[in-house]
C-alpha cells in the first residue's frame, strides 16, 4: 500500500508562519518527518501544535514558509489537496458528521461508487474491516455516528484516517478520550503502520506515551521550534518539560492537607438511572476529593451528570448540606452551590463565539447586574482576574472562546466555577488535553479548593491522577460502584484490575433490575 521509502525526509516543513488576528500562532516552525517513524510533537497548550498540523493538512494557509513533501516543494491549498498527496489527519476536535452512519463517515470524501451511485455494502465492509483492525468489531457500521460515545467517535475518526491509505497520518491528541486498553490498541495499529513505512505524527500531553511509542520528538514553544528530532526514548523527561515550559515543573501531586471537617457536604443515596447505572451511594465531606475510576462507558459521567441534575434519576436522592435537591434540575443544583466541568467542553460547556469573560461569568452574571441591567463589560474585570490567576493564554478576555487552544478552554471552564464560588465541584476529565504545566496548576488548584472547604468529585480515565489527587476512590464498573477505598490503600494495578474484572468475586451482581 505504500511506495518504497523516499530517500531523505518524507516531509520537511521550514520556517512556517501563521498569523491570526492578534496572535502569531506559528512564528517560524520547522518539522522533519521520515517514512516509518513516529514523530512526536510536544508543546504547551497554545504552543501551535494543532495550527501546524492544520497548515500541513491544507486547512490553514501559511503566511510564510516552505513545505517539502516527498522531495518536492508543495502548497496545499485545500484539505482535498493534502488528502490526495497522501496525508491523513485525525483532528483534535472531531470533524465527523453526527447525522451520518459510521460507515458513511469512514468513507466520507472518497465513497466507493459505481456510476455515481454509492455502494453502501462496500462502504460497510470497509468500515467493518477497519474497525476490527482497531480492535472494535462491536461498533456497527450502520449506527448513526452521533449516538456513539466520544471514545467511539474517536475510533471512527481513526478508521477514517486509515481508510485513505495515507503515507503520513497525523494524530492530534488521539489518546485524550481513550482508555488505557484502547491506547494500547492504538499503539499496536501505529506499530503496524510504521512497519509498512507509513509515517505518523503523534501529538499528546502524556509524556509516558511519547516514551512508549515515539521515535523522535520536536518541541514547540510559543509558535517556535525550540528543539528538533530529539530521541524520544532517551531524552530525560525533565529536559523535555523544561524545553516546553521554559522552567522546571514539579511533576508531582500536591500534598494532601488534613480533612477540613467532618461535615458531609454532598450526600448521594441510591441514585439510579435505568440502563445507565444502579444504586450509587456516596458522600463527600468538606475538603475531601473523591475520585471515580472506571472505563470509558462505565457510567461515571452519567453518574456525575445525574448528581448535577442534568439527567433525571429514576430513583435516589442527592443532598447538599442535608438539603434535598429537586431531581433533574440544574438550576437547583447550581443554587445549592454545585458546579460541573463536563466531559465535552466544546459541546457541553463553552459558548464558542462569545468572548472568554462572558463564558466565565455565565452562571454568575446576576451578581454583576442591577435589577437585571448589565453593562456589556460589567463582569469583565472579575472574570479577567480569575482567568489571569489561572494563567489562561492568550490573556485577553475579550477573545472569542473559539480561538483558544484546547487546554486553555478547559481553564476557562474551571474559571467559571471559581468565579461562581462553588462548594461542590464535579470535575469530569478536568485535565484532558491539558499540558504538563497547566496540569500541575490544575492539581494544585483542586487541592487548594479542597483546603478551602469545597467538596470535590473527580472523574478521570488516568488512574495515577485519581490516586494522586483523590482522598477516596470509588471504582465504577458497568454502572455500579464495585469498590470503595481510601486512595492510600490502592495502587494502579489494583485499580485497573477492579476496573476491568468481568465479575467481581462474591458480589451479587445483576440481582433485581
Amino acid at each position: 500500500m505504500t511506495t518504497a521509502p523516499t530517500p531523505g525526509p518524507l516531509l520537511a516543513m521550514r520556517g512556517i508562519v501563521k498569523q491570526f488576528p492578534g496572535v502569531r500562532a506559528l512564528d517560524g516552525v520547522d518539522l522533519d518527518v521520515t517514512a516509518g517513524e513516529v514523530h512526536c510533537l510536544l508543546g504547551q497548550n497554545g504552543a501551535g501544535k494543532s495550527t501546524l498540523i492544520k497548515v500541513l493538512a491544507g486547512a490553514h494557509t501559511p503566511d510564510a514558509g516552505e513545505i517539502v513533501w516527498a522531495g518536492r516543494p508543495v502548497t496545499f491549498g485545500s484539505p482535498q489537496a493534502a488528502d490526495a498527496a497522501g496525508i491523513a489527519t485525525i483532528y483534535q476536535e472531531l470533524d465527523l458528521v453526527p447525522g451520518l452512519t459510521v460507515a458513511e463517515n469512514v468513507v466520507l470524501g472518497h465513497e466507493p461508487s459505481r456510476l455515481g451511485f454509492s455502494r453502501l455494502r462496500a462502504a460497510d465492509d470497509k468500515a467493518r474491516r477497519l474497525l476490527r483492525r482497531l480492535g472494535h468489531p462491536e461498533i456497527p457500521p450502520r449506527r448513526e455516528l452521533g449516538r456513539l460515545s466520544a471514545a467511539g467517535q474517536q475510533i471512527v475518526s481513526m478508521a477514517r484516517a486509515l481508510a485513505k491509505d495515507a503515507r503520513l497520518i497525523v494524530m492530534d491528541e488521539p489518546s485524550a478520550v481513550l482508555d488505557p486498553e484502547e491506547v494500547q490498541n492504538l499503539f499496536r495499529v501505529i506499530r503496524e503502520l510504521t512497519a509498512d513505512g507509513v509515517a505518523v505524527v503523534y501529538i499528546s500531553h502524556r509524556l509516558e506515551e511519547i516514551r512508549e511509542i515515539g521515535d523522535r520528538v520536536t518541541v514547540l514553544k510559543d509558535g517556535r521550534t525550540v528543539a528538533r528530532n530529539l530521541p524520544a526514548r532517551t531524552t530525560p523527561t525533565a529536559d523535555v518539560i523544561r524545553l516546553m515550559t521554559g522552567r522546571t515543573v514539579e511533576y508531582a501531586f500536591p500534598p494532601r492537607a488534613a480533612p477540613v471537617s467532618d461535615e458531609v457536604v454532598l450526600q448521594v443515596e441510591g441514585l439510579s438511572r435505568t440502563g445507565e447505572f444502579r444504586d450509587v451511594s456516596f458522600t463527600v465531606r468538606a475538603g475531601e476529593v473523591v475520585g471515580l475510576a472506571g472505563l470509558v462507558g462505565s457510567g461515571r459521567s452519567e453518574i456525575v451528570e445525574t448528581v448535577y441534575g442534568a439527567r433525571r434519576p429514576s430513583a435516589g436522592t442527592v443532598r447538599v448540606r442535608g438539603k434535598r435537591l429537586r431531581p433533574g434540575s440544574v438550576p437547583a443544583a447550581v443554587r445549592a452551590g454545585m458546579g460541573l466541568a463536563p466531559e465535552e467542553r466544546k459541546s457541553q460547556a463553552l459558548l464558542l463565539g462569545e468572548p472568554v469573560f462572558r463564558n466565565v461569568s455565565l452562571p454568575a452574571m446576576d451578581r454583576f447586574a442591577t435589577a437585571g441591567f448589565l453593562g456589556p463589560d460589567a463582569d469583565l474585570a472579575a472574570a479577567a482576574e480569575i482567568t489571569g490567576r489561572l494563567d489562561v493564554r492568550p490573556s485577553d478576555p475579550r477573545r472569542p472562546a473559539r480561538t483558544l487552544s484546547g487546554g486553555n478552554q478547559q481553564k476557562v471552564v474551571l474559571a467559571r466555577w471559581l468565579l461562581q464560588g462553588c462548594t461542590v465541584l464535579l470535575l469530569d476529565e478536568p485535565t484532558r488535553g491539558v499540558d504538563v504545566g497547566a496540569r500541575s496548576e490544575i492539581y494544585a488548584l483542586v487541592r487548594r479548593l479542597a483546603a478551602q472547604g469545597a467538596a470535590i468529585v473527580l472523574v478521570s480515565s488516568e488512574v495515577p491522577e485519581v490516586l494522586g489527587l483523590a482522598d477516596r476512590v470509588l471504582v465504577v464498573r458497568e454502572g455500579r460502584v464495585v469498590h470503595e477505598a481510601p486512595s492510600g490503600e490502592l495502587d494502579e494495578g489494583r485499580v485497573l484490575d477492579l476496573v476491568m474484572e468481568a465479575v467481581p468475586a462474591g458480589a451479587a451482581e445483576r440481582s433485581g433490575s
Partner: protein
Amino acid sequence: MERAAREEPARSRLARLFDTGGGRNLGLVAVLVLLGVVGVVTTDTFLTTANLLTVLTQASIIGVLTVGMTFVIIGGGIDLSVGKVMALASVWCTTVATQSFGWVVMIFCALAVGVGAGLVNGLLITYGRIVPFIATLAMLISAQGLAEQISGRRSQIVTDPVIAGIANTRLAGIPLLVYIFAAVVVVGWVVLNRTTFGRRTFAIGGNPEAARLAGLDVRRHTILLYVVSGLCAGIAAIMIASLTTTGSSTHGTLYELDAIAAVIIGGTLLTGGRGTLIGSILGVLVFTTITNLFILNNLATEVQNIAKGALIVIAVLIQTRAQRSSGTG
C-alpha cells in the same frame, strides 16, 4: 506571553454600536444610501418629507414584529405565527363587545392575545418538545382559523376614537406609529444588549446544552422569548387596527416571512447565538424602501418580490462567507 499583548486596534464607539457582525451593518447602511440615490435619480417624489414618513410608517408595523423575531431567532428558535397572531389580536380587540369597554380594554385585550399565543408557543416547544417551526406553524394556522371564526370573515370597523386616532396623530410632524416603533426598538435594544435577559438569549441560542449545564433555566427563558414575540405581535395589532381602522383575519398575511427575511438580511444567524437588533431594523428599512421605490416607479409587485428574494440570497451568501473566513476552531 508577549505575543498576546499585540491586540487589534481599538474600534471606535460608533463602529462598536453597529458591529458584532463584522461591519455588516455599515454595509446595510450603504445599501440604504444606494437605494436613496436610486430613488432620487428615478423619481422626484422620493426625497420628500411626506414620502419618507410614508416609508417609516409602513416599516413600523413589520418593524415591531421584527424586534420580537430577532429575540426568538437569536435565542435559537423561529416564530412563524407572528403575522396571524397579530391578525387574531386585531380581531379580538375590535369585536363590538370589546370595543364597548373602551380603548384601555382594547389595548389590554390585544396585548393579552399576543402574550397568550406566545405562551402557548413556548409551552409547546419546551414542555411539548415540538420543534419551533412546527409549533408556530400550527399556531399560525389556528390563529388564522380563530380570527376568521370570531370575525365571521368580515372586517370589523374600529369605532373607538382613541384607537382610530393613533394613526392620525402626529407629534412634531412625525406619525405616532413611528414613535411606537422607535420605542419598541429602543426597549428591545436595551433588553438585548444591556440586561442579563439579553445575555442569556445569546447564550441559549449559541449553545443550549452549555447554557443548561451552566445552570440557566433554558425552558423558562425559551418560553419568555416566545412571549416577547407574542407581545410584539399584540402591539403591532393595535397599530394595524388603527392604521386600517379595522380588525381583520386577513391582516398580516405573510408578514412573518418579511420579518424573518429582515432578521436574516440584518446578519442574525438563523441557527441562533449571534445577531444584532440594529441589523434587523436596517433590514426592515431596506425592504420597505425597495417596496416604496417600486411603487413610486409604477413597477409590478412581481419584479419587486424577485428583487427581495435576490437580496435575501446575497445576504446569506455574505453571511456564510464571513463565517468561513472567521475560521472554524
